[in-house]
């Protein structure tokens, strides 16, 4: 198993190198001139050149790339010009915000999609099945920023049920002492129920927005997987031996059908983490997605590179984790290189 894992990690290295090169070239092709931007509104041509030299942007591309790789090897992701902070620190501070939001979004989605998928699978072709299909497809057909805006309008502005969309906590609360970076968990560790509730309130709308978007793949996978399990021999045997339909579905079929769903979940999580930039923008969420987008617009190279690299590594790690989990849960599947 260990050597298998190592092999998989090694196999992922060429893609990571590809990601580093492509990101580097892409960011250099951005139209903005950071030197001019940071030289301020009144800079002369000389002042701009001076700043260009300070930033090392007057060097040939290949030298810049070399410097970048050397820094990278030292774990230095560079500095963001717009926020003035080291990128590695920014990402460390912001990743938990994005991860917490995405994870909760996924949980919301699962809570709705898995029962839907099971119901649809028990009666394929029925009204329930079609409704499930329509609802989940409708969810994924809405642009996330649109869903988010509507939810804010209705639940904050009109009804006043949700708190102000001002990020992770209401302004008059202070963040719980950092242990995991997840406010929900940290506030529980700190035994501060008030902060826990405040953090949860802030999370509900953005998590719902993400959840609605990710209903479809989870529901569909659940349905597909349940269908195939329900038609398999052991379920038929269980049914034939007179077990109640509920017992058959929940104890026998569902547990077996969960394996492929877990795979999907991992992928949905990885995808959402990178794709929730728009949700973060709507809810002023201090995550890594919104950070990367703002940097991209400002032609701020380092954060974009750092973000993409982080996501790529996460992606590879997550794949690996799912492989391992899968191998543990289902002994029939072995890790093969």
């Amino acid at each position, binding site marked *: 198993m260990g050597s298998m894992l190592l092999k998989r990690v090694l196999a992922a290295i060429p893609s990571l190198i590809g990601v580093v090169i492509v990101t580097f070239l892409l960011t250099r092709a951005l139209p903005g001139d950071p030197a001019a*931007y940071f030289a301020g509104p009144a800079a002369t041509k000389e002042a701009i050149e001076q700043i260009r030299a*300070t930033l090392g942007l007057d060097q040939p591309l290949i030298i810049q790339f070399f410097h970048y790789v050397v820094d990278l090897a030292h774990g230095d992701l560079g500095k963001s010009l717009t926020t*003035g902070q080291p990128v590695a620190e920014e990402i460390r*501070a912001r990743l938990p915000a994005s991860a917490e939001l995405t994870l909760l979004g996924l949980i919301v989605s699962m809570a709705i999609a898995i029962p839907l998928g099971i119901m649809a699978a028990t009666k394929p072709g029925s009204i329930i099945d079609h409704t499930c299909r329509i609802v989940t497809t409708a969810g994924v057909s809405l642009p996330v920023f649109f869903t988010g805006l509507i939810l804010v309008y209705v639940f904050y502005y009109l009804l006043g049920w949700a708190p102000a969309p001002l990020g992770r906590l209401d302004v008059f609360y202070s963040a719980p002492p950092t242990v995991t970076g997840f406010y929900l968990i940290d506030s529980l560790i700190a035994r501060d129920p*008030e902060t826990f509730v405040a953090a949860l309130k802030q999370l509900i709308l953005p998590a719902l927005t993400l959840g609605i978007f990710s209903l479809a793949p989870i529901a569909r996978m659940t349905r597909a997987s349940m269908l195939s399990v329900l038609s398999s021999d052991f379920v038929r045997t269980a049914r034939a031996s007179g077990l109640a339909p509920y017992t058959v579905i929940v104890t026998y079929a569902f547990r077996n059908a969960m394996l492929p769903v877990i795979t999907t979940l991992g992928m949905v999580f990885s995808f959402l983490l990178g794709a929730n930039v728009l949700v973060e923008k709507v809810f*002023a969420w201090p995550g890594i997605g919104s950070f990367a987008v703002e940097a991209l617009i*400002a032609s701020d190279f380092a954060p974009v590179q750092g973000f993409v690299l982080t996501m790529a590594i996460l992606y590879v790690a997550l794949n690996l984790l799912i492989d391992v989990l899968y191998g543990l849960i289902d002994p029939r599947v072995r890790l093969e290189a």
Partner: protein
Amino acid sequence: MKRRDFLKSMTALAAGGAVSAPAVFSPARAQGRQETLLIVSESGPNNLDIHGIGTNVPGYEVSWNCYDRLISHEMKTLPNGTQYYDRDKFKLELADDMNIGDMSVTFKLKKNATFQDGKPVTAKDVKWSLDRAVTVGGFPTFQMGAGSLTKPEQFVVLDDNTIRVDFLTKDRLTIPDLAVIVPCVVNSELVKSKVTDKDPWGLEYTKLNTAGSGAYRVTTWNAGSEVILERFDNWKGGPLPKMRRIIWRMVPSAGNRRALLERGDADISYDLPNKDFVELRDAGKLNIVSTPYSNGIQYIGMNVKTPPFDNLKVRQAIAYAIPYQKIMDAALFGLAKPLYGAPADAKTEPVWPEAHKYNTDLAKAKQLLAEAGYPEGFETTLSFDLGFAGVNEPICVLTQESLAQIGIKTTINKIPGATWRTELNKKVMPLYTNVFSGWLDYPEYFFIWCYHGKNSIFNTMSYQSPEMDKLIDGAGAAASVGDKATYDKDVDGFVDLAFADIPRIPLYQPYVNVAMQKNISGYQYWFHRRLDYRALAKG
């Protein structure tokens, strides 16, 4: 009787409940809320020090409130009740005394003034700070230069408590330039202890920390999401500010900012779309203050170096084809001061900005275009800064539509904010809209940057005219010796020439719009247009 008592007590209970119910905060939090100001804006600082490389405009606000200058401006009250900085009246901030001589000015420092770490403010700190401003390069050095402050030798320490600033030339902008944000006084002992070989001015430290003697200091800064400032109780620059704590949150969505204000969650926001300001003003639930930018205009610029805009008649045709009123209505919702359509017999005043005499007249525009040799029109691109798309995009779309009617086909080019300055610098965009405003509110200051033949980067049209240069230089010289008659004549002259040659078409003077809860008072308009927390009060 008994029953009545019972009812009474129930009512009291209910009333008590009703009062306390909305207060979701625990008592300590409610108390904190009373002394805390919550500001929301679209973007936040990228650097806490205005001397830093590429400090953005929100960063100026931090500098303004956390550092002191030797002098500042008095306030005056506008007819609408707004507190507005008085360009011509200075007040002492860190200085206890200002003595203007013929070729120098001498300041005595307040004896009891200390930095936030308790060290006294000395003349050495002042000199180090001014040296730093004229040496670090980039924007601060440029701004100092605008007041003929360019060399460290100009700043002379006389004793611990006295500093003299020598003039290089007679320039009436020198004293005002000492009251802008840049010449702030930094705790030199503290910052020097953080200096490295690569960073002789300690910019890395002040980027993340405030090291001043000002009324506030930054205690928390999460770039891109919030800045928290606490009051410095031992501040000597003025009366102790009312607000103990300022929380400044970045909320990118304008809709959310408006919702926060309307629901009473935020105290102040000052970069909402015009439409929201108009509606909030009309709804009357909030205090809305609109003040024209000092010395600032939004304009349509044309590159006069390349055809067809090298042709005066083409430029005039464009000036007659701009849909001014539509822009005022649909893009600005009336919240701006028009700079067009002055009566034909209006006399030019020695002030800036002022209105020109062009109006929307498509027939005349078409005729001018034909006279210029473009009876069929031509094709060009119209560019704008995406960072201000809310106003720029409707302006460009309306202009595009109007120009199409005289045969000029335009493609709209939206340029991301980060790239905008680069594009302006290249001076190749044929047609574009932009805003310029100067901190120092003097007509010749505006013109020297925007119209002078030395072709600064703000002369985005690449306009060059010896006659114009003579008038601008003449006005500057006249001002420094106090020759009002010549000054007025020259200012009239360059304004007239700018309108006759029309390389840029002024559209309007934008407003700074600030929306506040009714219980917030003390808003002051400053030349830098950012908030001054020191005067704000709540309740």
